């Protein structure tokens, strides 16, 4: 079947099997490999993207067909004109990533969280990210990264060199 999805402002028209999941549509049909697949049960959150501006969606729980005619934001669309998004900058400054596999999902879930709550408390952040697993960081620096992006923590504690 034919689907047309606007991803990061670019329209992708593809002919896919009806059972194609949005995660694989993005990765294999659009060549956008930022969304990762880390489980088979929609538990890990590595594949989270934002649909229609503000809704964080695990792209492994959505068919590409369901995204037909919708707008999707992936990690590839966060930085603008070579400038990192404040969330990306926060994750970098606060050492909010190690292996990087969960990072795209963390960024997009945080993006949607901040759309709904511009100044979330630590508890809000921890509960808001509870659908995204990370095996490397212990979450503490991810929380700080979101706090920095929301202007609640000064930037760049780490030395530039």
């Amino acid at each position: 079947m034919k689907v047309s999805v606007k991803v990061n402002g670019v329209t992708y028209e593809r002919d896919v099997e009806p059972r194609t999941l949005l995660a694989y549509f993005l990765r294999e049909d659009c060549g956008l490999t930022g969304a990762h697949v880390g489980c088979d049960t929609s538990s890990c959150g590595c594949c989270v993207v934002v649909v229609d501006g503000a809704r964080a969606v695990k792209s492994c729980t959505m068919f590409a067909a369901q995204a037909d005619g919708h707008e999707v934001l992936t990690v590839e669309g966060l930085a603008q004109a070579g400038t990192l998004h404040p969330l990306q900058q926060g994750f970098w400054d606060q050492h909010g990533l190690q292996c990087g596999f969960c990072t795209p999902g963390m960024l997009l879930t945080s993006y949607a969280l901040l759309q709904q709550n511009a100044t979330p408390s630590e508890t809000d952040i921890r509960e808001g990210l509870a659908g995204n697993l990370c095996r490397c960081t212990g979450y503490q620096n991810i929380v700080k990264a979101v706090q920095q992006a929301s202007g609640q923590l000064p930037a760049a504690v780490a030395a530039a060199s």
Partner: protein
Amino acid sequence: MSIESKPRHSVGKAMKRKEDPRFLQGKGNYVDDLKVPGMLYLSLARSPYPHAEIKNIDISEAMKVPGVKAVIIGKDLEAAGLGWLPTFHGFDKQMVLAIGKVLFQYQEVAAVFAESRAAAEDGAEAVQVDYAPLPVVADPFASKTDQVLLRPDRDSKTNHIFHWEVGNKDGTERALASSAKKIKQRIWFQRCHPAPLEPCGCVAWFDTMGRLQFHVTSQAPHVYRTALALVTGIAEDKIHVVSPDIGGGFGNKVPVYPGYVCAIVGALKIGRPVKWIETRTENLTSTGFARDYHMDVEIGATPDGRVTALHVATTADHGAFDAAADPSKYPAGIFGIVTGSYDFPVAHAEVDAYFTNKAPGGIAYRCSFRVTEASYAIERGMDILADELGMDAVELRQKNFVKKDQFPYPSALGFTYDSGDYHNTLGVALEKVGYKALLKEQAERRAKGELMGIGFSTFTEVVGAGPSKHFDILGIKMFDSAEIRIHPTGAGIVRAGTKSQGQGHETTWAQIVAEELGLDPQTIMVEEGDTDTAPYGLGTYASRSTPVAGAAITMAARRVREKARKIAAHLLEVGEGDVEWVDYKFQVKGVPAKTVTMKEVAFAAYTNMATNEPGLEATYYYDPPNMTYPCGAYVAVVDIDRETGEVKVRRFLAVDDCGVVINPMVVEGQIHGGLTEGFAMAYMQEIQYDAEGNHLNTNFADYLVPTSAETPRWETANTVTPSPHHPMGAKGVGESPNVGSPAAFVNAVIDALSPLGIRHLDMPVNRDKVWRAIRDAEAGKTGAAVFA
């Protein structure tokens, strides 16, 4: 930053990670991101039975599935001489695809190659296998009886894999018999799975020159290349292994798995590239589990609490094949670290391993092989001894610590601990956590019937495998290597035999080179994981990167500096003996005004080298003289809800001593992550099988890993006792928090429950188990005094 370090030119600084921009923008290069023209997908058909004879395999329906190109079964591989795979320490072999029978649920039975991922999975489902179920052995204690022989393929007709022991058996027995105080406790470290978020996978193809191109989630790419050459007979120069970005490893990505072999065979047979990416279920059910050690711990002591002897007898469950990824010469790895931080006059440790109908392994999950088990046993054992003696667990530890002036310390089980100051490290922890105030609060709460616990773990780790006389994989010694090239403009590249899976090598390796050469770390590129370009190395696990490769990089950089000194002498117009390295520059001895920078020397190495050999590069292969011995003092404070059994970690303080710190931000991040995995093992992570060998938690909905909601906020600090034998004084840190913390978590829970007379619970100490323990204690079932 709560991890302190002395900032120097480059080392000791919290430098932001150089690898992060690509990960932050979705530009990481993980193996599943690779797409090669003409690529097929591989899916594996797996056994629903834990133990069964294979009567027949019918692939005809699978071949009819649209898109399926080929199906391979065990007999096909056996005919090609690839039916079995040697395990890394070489004591056993493992079936690639089942031959004759299956030995664990989810064992690989058939490999299906198809045009798409979905078609391959459809094909795998269509493989028809006729099984005749056999009796299942799901427990190592049942395995001991040999009533069902699991591995008739082996010469030795028993389920017993090995007996290993170290120490003084008779002396320990005598000392225990004559000790005034004694404890004995069976402590089980449950079966866990590291579950890195990126599953294992590979892409294999033969290029136009006939070379095998193999991109794979490997923590040890060079070892894979050699192992593939030995197993397949392909000349080693015709094998190119690439470990791209890896989404976490934790030991899970050390072994070679059947899926990798099938992908290569498929690529050869069909003549097209093959991708295999396991699902989460396949990851949890068939690749490298960890632990599953049942440890009988006995400690003797004098009435005033001086330890006299330690004996640990372990029954180990290795599953269907002894596929332990053990790089040491000893089948139980370095379990001998079980005497921990304490000055035991005599000790004896023994391990007996058995086959069962469970997934094969195990692997060293974020630790040196079997060190987490050993550390947990002694740290839990010391708390039980304190309870027996009626003594404060801190006082007991302080009384028995190896003292600062005893280093280098020869342990009763044969290690030579390099350095440490255990009293100081614990002292910092006690002060920072406010131990006295916590004890006062605990007494007040206990008087009100509330359950508050304070748990300690004062562990000693052993990392940096390892000295060639003790450590190898398939005979290859456990050295590591570095190659440094400095370009004419003073930028450069360092390549190492390690492979980062999130540890931040692209940053920290550059910091080391920059420190040794007085260059800018931002212009030192780091490359790892490509066997065509990196010098031979044994990879990243066992916290060996900094102790071994970090040392190799330091030594290679010093070789570069020695070469540079000759050119500096030419530039400064003095003899080489008159040049010294001061404040990151070459200087004429005693003449601070006459200097030349490394950048200037680098340019001269290509443009004005006089009679010196042109160029500026060096290679170093480092065979460590000893392991390194990081240590730590961890404190957990928990509150338990008496009605529900819920454990809340109120505080957790980790004071680590990993020697000299290269990047405090990275070190702190490693500690946060390791503590979270320790928290996970203590409270939730357990791979469970029922009595019939059925795997009960095959996905992240059932195999629980911590989320941000329940993970505690970590407090960290450090002391610095440099390693005397490491060229930078560093010891490694990635695994300490995972090794040291489980005991602190459990000790805190047991301390909270101790007024109920509860002395031990096995992990995971989840709500259900704690609630049952409280209920039983209150009903008098543990003989405990019930308090108001």
